[in-house]
Structure formats: C-alpha cells, structure tokens
C-alpha cells in the first residue's frame, strides 16, 4: 500500500467529486452527536449524488436531509431521526410512501454497527456478540447471523464485517497529510477510519505536522489511511465540536418543524443547501452573530505529556 507524501488538501467540492461517486456506501456521523460532517453531506446533495448507501450508528439529522434530497437508496444504521427533537420526517416519507424515492432500511443496533466496522478494521469476516439475541433486528438483518460459539458452545450472533467505500470523518485538527487529532466522544470514528476503503478527513484546523507528531497517542487516524483532507471550519454545524463550538440546539428544532411537510423541507433545502454555493455561503447565511453564541466561552486545555527522553 503506497502513501503519498504530497499534500492531500482538497476543497470539499473536489474531494466529493473525486472520491464519492453515485452508488457509494458512505460512513458519516461516526462520532455520534458531535463532529457530524454536515458540510460534506450538503456537498453530496449539491453534486446530486444518487443511490448512496448511508452507514452510521446514528446521524442526527444529516441522514434525514440526504434521504429527503433523494440521494439515498439504502441505510445501514441503528437510528435515524433528530436526537433532541424526535423523528425524521424525510425518513418516514421515504420508507412509508416512497417520497421522494423508496429507501431500503437495514437495521442495526449501535453496538452491532460498531462491531461490523470493528470486524472490517480488524480484518476478519465477522465478530461475535451477545447483543440482538431474541430481537427482530437479528431476525431481519441478513448481516447478523446466529451461530454456536466454537468455544463453549453458547448461542452468539456473528456481525458481518462492513467496509464502507468511503468514510467522511470530521476532526478538530489535522496536518496536510491527514494525520489527525480528534477528542471528546468518538463513537465509531477510529474503527470507521480503518474499516473504510477510503477516508475523507474534514478538519476545523490544518496545523503543522509537528503539532500532530507531538502527541502520537492522539493520532488515532494516521495519514496513511487518508485520501483527502478538507479544511472546513464550522463544517460540523449544527453539531458540536469540542473546543471549537457548541451544539446549535435551535437549528435542530427549526429543522424538525421545517421538515414536517415535504414542501417546507424543500424550502429548507433550497435555503441552506442548494441555494448556497459552498460552506462559506452557508456560514454567511448562518451569520456571525449566531456563530458567536456558539463559540467557546471558557477554554479548558489538556495537561501536556512529555515524549522526551
């Protein structure tokens, strides 16, 4: 496997154009409710990607938006909705009425999504678990198979390895080679980076390689696994990024109201996605004042560790 030592920096438009064709399976929202790559999801919509398979434990409202925009053929996830406000109306319309198009649901639990990615990251065809025994998640998901343990003979579930075509992962900071530092709750992000065939890294900040290399224990996503690095400040809004901005709770509730009816959602989509050229346009629409209310009010720096000798 060859690594490229030139810079991997691309614009979001270039990265999506180059690495996420229609029909791809895409892992997003890997860190759960923080670090959700909304900017990348919106670019997928603008570039009119079709027949995507979305993979993730939960996605907060990002998957609902992509489903409503008609980009999605299949969802392999544990949960799709609006974490603080309730259901995802686009998910309901797609699955109940086929609007704007039918979407196939392959239901997992959070842990079985995590284990499917962990299996791919470990390079084995499956991992065993006791979770989902007795459930219809197990009964209906073809990638979960009941079997007898070769050790001890007890009933277990085999979770088939899941290797997304591409993982789009938002992080706090990275160098131009894609060596990345992320912190806070990381959900399945680390295994996701190792499970996927390609990684598009989206970073709040691009820093000198020396900053990343000063703390290799935090470099859980090494650049050798990364195909493209996109510098996209505020690219995770309205989800939070620890140390950079908080969660824009109101935005989630506004979306909830404005996605209840199809027509209202189409207006929302035009306003926030189709009607802006890129993330800069989105941020302009969001406004500096609103961003100001979400910024860091009190820093809380980690204590350093010494790699000296």
């Amino acid at each position: 496997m060859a690594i490229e030592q030139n810079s991997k920096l691309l614009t979001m438009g270039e990265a999506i154009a180059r690495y996420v064709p229609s029909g791809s399976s895409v892992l997003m929202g890997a860190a759960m409710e923080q670090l959700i790559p909304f900017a990348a999801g919106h670019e997928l919509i603008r570039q009119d990607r079709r027949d995507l398979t979305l993979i993730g434990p939960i996605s907060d409202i990002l998957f609902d938006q992509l489903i409503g925009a008609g980009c999605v053929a299949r969802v392999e996830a544990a949960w799709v909705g609006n974490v603080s406000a309730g259901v995802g109306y686009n998910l309901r319309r797609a699955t109940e009425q086929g609007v704007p198009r039918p979407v196939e649901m392959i239901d997992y639990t959070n842990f079985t999504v995590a284990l499917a990615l962990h299996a791919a990251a470990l390079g084995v065809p499956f991992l065993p678990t006791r979770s989902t025994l007795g459930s219809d998640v197990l009964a209906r998901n073809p990638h979960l198979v009941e079997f007898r343990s070769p050790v001890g003979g007890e009933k277990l579930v085999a979770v088939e390895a899941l290797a997304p075509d591409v993982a789009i992962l938002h992080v706090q900071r990275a160098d131009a080679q894609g060596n990345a530092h992320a912190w806070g709750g990381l959900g399945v992000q680390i295994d996701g980076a190792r499970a996927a065939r390609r990684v598009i890294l989206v970073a709040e900040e691009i820093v000198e390689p020396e900053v990343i290399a000063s703390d290799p224990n935090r470099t859980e996503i090494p650049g050798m696994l990364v195909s493209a690095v996109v510098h996209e400040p505020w690219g995770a809004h309205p989800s939070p990024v620890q140390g950079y901005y908080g969660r824009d709770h109101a935005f989630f509730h506004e979306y909830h109201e404005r996605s209840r009816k199809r027509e209202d959602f189409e207006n929302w989509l035009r306003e926030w996605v189709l009607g802006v050229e890129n993330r800069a346009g989105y941020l302009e629409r969001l406004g500096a004042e609103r961003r100001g209310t979400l910024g860091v009010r009190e820093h809380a720096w980690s204590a350093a560790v010494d790699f000296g000798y």
Partner: protein
Amino acid sequence: MRLGEPQAEACATRSGFTLGELMVAAAAREILDGEWVFVGMRLPLLAFLVAKRLHAPRAVGLYENGVIRVDPAPEMLYTMADPPNQRGATYCGEMTRVMSLLQQGCVDVGFLGAAEVDRHGNLNSTWGRRDGQVVRLPGSGGAGDIACLAKRTVVLMAHQPHRLVERVGYVTSPGYGTGGDWRSAIGLRAGSGPAAILTTMGVLRFDETGDAYLASVHPGVAVGQVVANTGWKLRVAADLGETPAPSAAELGVIREFDPEGFWTRQP
C-alpha cells in the same frame, strides 16, 4: 439513542409538580448507590443527576457515544455528546470501550424508551403501525444492546392503549420475550431483563414469569383508567400503592438542571 420516550406532558398536578418531574424522580429511585448506569437521553439524563446528588453519589454514568462520568455534567444536556458532558469526563473515546463493559455484564441498569411495549416488556422502536398504516420509527440506537446486555432495564413510556400492547409488532429490544425462561433459552444472561415500566399513569413491574402487573398508580390516577389505557388485560398488585410524589429535594435538583422545563415541560 433511545428515543420514543413520552414527551412527558405538561400536566401540572394540584400538588405543584409536573408529570415529567414525577417520572424523573421515579426513574432516579431505580438507581442504587454505586451502580453503573447506562444513562440514555431525555428524562433519564435528569434522573441520573437526581440520583447522584441525593441517594447514589457513587453511581457511574455510561454514554454510548464513548463517555463515562463519575462526576455528572455540570449543565443541562440535550445530547450525550454536548460539550459539557465531554469536558471533565472520566473517559472519552470509543463506543466499543463503553459497550464492551455493558457486554461484560458490568452495567447494572439501563434506561429505555420505545413507541410500543408489551406485557413481557419487549420494546418496539423500529416499525410501528397506526390506523392500519406502517409507521417508520427511528430505530434501536443503543436500546437493543442495553435491553440484551444490562442486568436490568427501566422503560419510560407514555401510557396509551396503542403503545402498551399485548405483543409488539417488531422486537427492537427484547424484554422477557414470551415469558418464563425465554431470556436464558435465547442466550441472554439469566436474571437480566426489565425491572419496571414507568408510564405517565403508573409503575408496572414483572412477576417471576416475566409478565407485567401494575405496581403503583401516580397521584390522582385511577386504577380503572390505567387498565382501560392498557392494550392487554393488566393485572393489578394486591398491595397496589401510589407512586411517591417527588420530594422537595428531588424537585430542587430537577429544576436546578432544567430550569426551563425542556425535558419535564414544567408549566
């Protein structure tokens, strides 16, 4: 994510507390001191804070996004990944590191919500049915994992006849299955399973066959009203009591952390 919990209604009672506050207090009392708790979202977020402050100071909170907290977050949370829940945490990192403790059998109690529950405590939060139509719900999130792997679970639900049903149409999160020794026969740990269903009308518990019965009614709620709003012939405990009202101390903590009543719809 464990959504589908009741949007606890903003029905102020004569006693000066909301139904949401009553449910939070009842949920808090399900947490014993020193226990490891899979906290979940919405009302249980507050219940954990109440328990920690009042009667379970050594409880540990586990969050499936990859967070463990011995000291609870200092602020109201909308989601478990809100920055106040990550700063100062005991651990932040991978979901698998937290879920593996659950699978080891270390987690004493987990809180769950759902769109439907049945008499054996099985939960549906995936595919519902309303007026003959299929309804797509958000899905399991971590609920199915907690239902399978925690020592015991506590369910929070709005009490409506179409939500408390004889048999759920889809088992997202297994309770006692079809009752009896179903859980151990299916491969789940013997002795695990739902401990209580806290509804907007009362508290249901389970007998040794895994069948639910009404253990207490909330203040001002009639037994007949509960039975009429349950989709199966609900048995009533011989020693049926009234769910204790939240104490002043409990209300104090709830209102300190949720002054706007976002989760408890305080009037």
